[in-house]
């Protein structure tokens, strides 16, 4: 291949990369009804293959010499700022560096595997092609998000993934619950998006830029660390990030989002979309680093979320909701890491988490399908024997989640925890939180495992394990990735090193027991659960009280199950007032006020009409009366004008 041609080809490949799934989307949505499963699946998965191969190719082209590849498609619009006489073009332009390389490899790689899984998983659904179309569209939006050269384009992808998430959560739209979950997801994330949009307005006003590279440059030249503007902008961007990544205080939508088909939960609500917030903060690190206070907030938000989600996960009975809370909690780790300035560790965890959480969700999906859409843990039990293959895969996933040494989760999570103690923006307290979170993680994972796979089988019907090879292969691939994903650590480290600046660390000396504690924590959790949840794994059903398999109705358990009451809080604080305000004013108070005038006129009409009695003598008297009154008015007027 001609060397001179190579950059051009790379550029073209990069430019086309996100659009293969778009073509598939358009075809599927237009002709979906008429396509057979084979064609539809082939189309959508094929598009993903193209994208994945393209991303492999372009990532190959990245090197120390070529740290960035860009591809300019066309100018979207221009912002002409007349005060500073600056003109900023907002382009449809893709920007590939180490960070986006990691992201596109996750998106296309995991996306491809999930597409393969979904093709088999959703085969029976009558709206199969619509489903695959949405999934494709999602990939398009996600790729645009991570490849965007400027924040407006990023926002496009950002909203696009939100829309697809909405569509996929509400995919089975006949159920009211699904519909409401979809609505909630969209609106709650929209709150964050709005904060982010305001952040963009502010950025443009202050810097006159919206292109990420330019922002990085001018932010560093115009602002000093701790600048007020940087603080506000970072805070607003953080608002966007917490919305998308389901962090406190906008986390409530994620558990409900599990109403969508399982591949959706895997792809969108575990592996990719929810990590967009993490990506945003990592991408905008230049701004965040100028606002250390916000970095601290990020860390604290992450820590709070990971503990809160861990506690909530402990009380869940729905397998997918456990995983959802666990996702929240793991993203909390990523946030914590970003807040601590450990950007590459955060991104690394993002990737490994994508592997094992996708695995967990997909396996859960396979199990749920086998159990005739039974998702309640308390109705499972003893699946170890009945579904050995799925159990093994799930166990692999859990091992990674708990971060047992050697697994991919171990590498990434340890990398995070290791950097907390002496970070300027985190510190020992947050380190403790992270450790506590890890403990919680291992406890709820064990609880989940014991409930579902061990003990007496409580599922009476026969099982229907999927026999599809596509399912198996995709799961195995994910399992392998989860196990060996830790090896990518170095590659990522090097590729990200050029993206993230070095963060100064405090000189706090780290006690040498830190690492031991971190490694030991999961085991402590496992041992604790082994005994604490002994009844869950006991096979001796006869001697046991069956009551333990009935969901606890105690207040505390309910409180935890419902995500520590945030839903309730928001319902009474925001939703209810808004709805009742709307209801109260359905007839539009301004309209009423204006129509009041019409009422006055009608009243005037009635009054005047009653004066039209038809009586001649009254008419004559009225002439006299009116004359008299006019005389009075005239005399008053005469007196007043003469007085003045």
């Amino acid at each position, binding site marked *: 291949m001609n060397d001179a041609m190579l950059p051009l080809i790379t550029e073209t490949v990069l430019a086309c990369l996100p659009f293969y799934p778009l073509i598939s989307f358009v075809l599927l949505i237009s002709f979906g009804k008429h396509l057979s499963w084979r064609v539809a699946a082939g189309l959508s998965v094929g598009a993903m293959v193209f994208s994945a191969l393209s991303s492999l190719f372009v990532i190959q082209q990245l090197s120390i010499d070529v740290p960035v590849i860009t591809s300019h498609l066309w100018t979207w619009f221009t912002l002409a700022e007349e005060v500073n006489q600056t003109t900023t073009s907002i382009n449809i332009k893709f920007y590939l560096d180490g960070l986006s390389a990691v992201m596109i490899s996750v998106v296309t790689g995991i996306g491809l595997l999930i597409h393969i899984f979904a093709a088999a998983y959703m085969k029976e659904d009558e709206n199969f092609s619509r489903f695959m179309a949405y999934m494709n569209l999602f990939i398009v939006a996600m790729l645009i998000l991570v490849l965007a050269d400027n924040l407006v384009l990023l926002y496009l992808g950002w909203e696009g993934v939100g829309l697809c998430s909405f569509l996929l959560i509400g995919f089975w739209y006949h159920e009211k619950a699904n519909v409401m979950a979809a609505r909630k997801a969209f*609106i709650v994330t929209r709150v964050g998006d709005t904060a982010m949009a305001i952040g963009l307005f502010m950025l443009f006003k202050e810097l006159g830029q919206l292109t990420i590279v330019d922002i990085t440059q001018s932010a560093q030249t115009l602002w000093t660390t701790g600048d007020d503007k940087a603080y506000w902008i970072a805070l607003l961007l953080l608002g966007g990030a917490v919305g998308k990544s389901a962090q406190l205080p906008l986390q409530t939508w994620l558990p409900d989002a599990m109403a969508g088909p399982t591949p959706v939960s895997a792809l969108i609500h575990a592996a990719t979309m929810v990590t967009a917030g993490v990506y945003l903060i990592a991408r905008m690190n230049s701004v965040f680093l100028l606002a250390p206070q916000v970095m601290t907030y990020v860390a604290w938000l992450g820590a709070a979320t990971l503990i809160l989600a861990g506690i909530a996960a402990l009380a869940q009975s729905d397998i997918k909701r456990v995983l959802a809370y666990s996702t929240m909690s793991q993203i909390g780790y990523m946030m914590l890491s970003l807040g601590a300035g450990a950007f590459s560790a955060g991104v690394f965890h993002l990737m490994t988490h994508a592997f094992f959480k996708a695995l967990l969700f997909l396996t859960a999906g396979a199990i749920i399908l086998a159990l005739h859409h039974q998702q309640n843990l308390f109705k499972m039990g003893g699946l170890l024997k009945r579904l050995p293959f799925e159990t093994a895969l799930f166990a692999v996933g859990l091992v990674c989640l708990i971060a047992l040494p050697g697994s991919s989760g171990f590498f990434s999570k340890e990398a995070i925890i290791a950097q907390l103690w002496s970070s300027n923006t985190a510190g020992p307290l947050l380190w403790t939180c992270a450790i506590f979170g890890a403990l919680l993680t291992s406890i709820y994972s064990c609880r989940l495992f014991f409930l579902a796979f061990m003990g007496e089988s409580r599922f009476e019907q026969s099982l229907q394990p999927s026999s599809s090879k596509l399912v198996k292969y995709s799961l195995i691939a994910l399992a392998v990735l989860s196990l060996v994903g830790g090896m990518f650590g170095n590659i990522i480290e090097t590729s990200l090193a050029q993206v993230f600046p070095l963060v100064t660390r405090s000189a706090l000396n780290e006690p040498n027991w830190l690492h031991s504690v971190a490694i030991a924590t999961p085991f402590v959790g496992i041992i604790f659960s082994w005994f604490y949840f002994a009844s869950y794994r006991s096979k001796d059903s006869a001697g046991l009280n069956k009551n333990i398999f009935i969901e606890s109705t105690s207040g505390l358990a309910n409180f935890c199950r419902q995500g520590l009451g945030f839903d309730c809080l928001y319902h009474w604080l925001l939703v209810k007032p808004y709805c009742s305000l709307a*209801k109260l004013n359905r007839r539009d108070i*301004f309209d009423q006020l204006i*129509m009041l005038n019409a009422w006055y006129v009608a009243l005037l009409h009635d009054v005047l009409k009653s004066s039209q009695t038809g009586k001649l003598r009254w008419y004559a008297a009225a002439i006299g009366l009116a004359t008299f009154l006019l005389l009075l008015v005239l005399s008053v007027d005469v007196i007043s004008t003469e007085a003045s």
Partner: protein
Amino acid sequence: MSITLLMCGLLFGGALAWFLEGVKAQSARWVSLLTVLVIGGYFAIALNATAYDFSTLQLLVRVAWISSFHIEYALALDYLSIVLILLTLFLALICVLVSWQEINDKVGFYYFNLLTSIAGIIGVFTAVDMFLFFFFWEVMLLPITALIAIWGHENRHFAAIKFFIFTQLSSLLMLVAIISMSFIHYQQVGQLSFFYQDWLTLDLPLSISQYLMLGFFIAFAVKLPSVPVHSWLPDAHTQAPTAGSVLLAGVLLKTGAYGLIRFVLQLFPQASVNFAPVAATLGVVSILYGAKMAFAQQDLKRLVAYSSISHMGFVMLALFSFNAIAYQGAVLTLVAHGLSSAALFALAGMIYSRIHSRDLNHMGGFWLNTPRMGGFALAFSAAAFGLPGLANFVAEFLSLVGAYQRYPILTILAAFGLIGSAIYGMVLFQGVFHGKCQVKQQAVNDLSSRELLVFSSLLALLIFIGFYPNSILGFFQSDSIIIAINNTVGVSK
């Protein structure tokens, strides 16, 4: 090029449709379709053929009309009016198509009214003699009122009267202001004049111009509409036949914005700048209040109507921020909202034709049988809540970015409208297409090919503009009237 010919052509086409319907049934539709196509084609060709530079106002015709008041028949064009005329003609086409099967009574007269109102609207966008402008401003109302009052829904007379009285009252205020301006011209120059460009040269003391500005402003604010004088709109939109709603939302509201740009801002720059905080606040209130009201509605068309109020609030906010970016955003909002709200009203009309109800409680679960319609509905509600990639996003983004330069707090409040719009967008889309089906499924058919044509053309334009807004914004880079105003008034940071 002759705008007069354009209007006469539409009038003639309308009259022909009316006449031919008596001769042969069904012919009115084809005649009007043909008329709109021919007129649109003529306009496009004529535009290409002219050598004018439309970045400033180009006078096309100027002849004496009413000599006792020095009133002239004067028409002029610039890019703003060209863009709006193109939008009008395109939506006229949509109107003809959506009425195709909806209107079965007095079809000829219906199309006559439709085309007449289009002609009047084109007149509004081109008139530069203020009396003429007012003349068209009123004349366009008559056929639209007739559309509502004759072919509207159950409460049509009330809605038509309300619509007419609102606009008439406010425009009388404008008439008073117009007459006052001409009288001031008389006092300063010694001759009455209603010619727009004569007025631009007047030297108005602020004490007078603020009142005159208010006269114009109120008329346009009612048409825009802005809270608190918006309440004609939900009724009119709801009761109008589909094409009427499309016309109202798509074009008629734009005349209000056009008036603000052309007259309020340019004739009274200083007074506008002084008044801007109030106007911008009204804009923000409209955004939020409209979004909130839209959410509260049970009636599909009312919901869309309130969403229009919300969107027009962006225009108001943007225009009164005196910022070139915001100005572009406002212009783009006009086009984008014209297309998206037209589409949503067309959607409401199509649903009405299927289930004979506009009540959201009677809807739900339509996706099952009408996936195509659902898909389009999704796209159009996405446009309504400003999904990037559609024209509305760029429009709102530009408006807000621009407005933020001047009114950070107000813009932040306005941005909450984005949440509000998401909420009503969800209510709209999910209420119709998600959930359990309430009516007999058989009744709900998917789009016919005519409807498909309507929707796909609208969506294609929305997407095209959404990704390539420069196709429109390109015209508004150089002629930023806002810069001119800022220069005259001397506003700067």
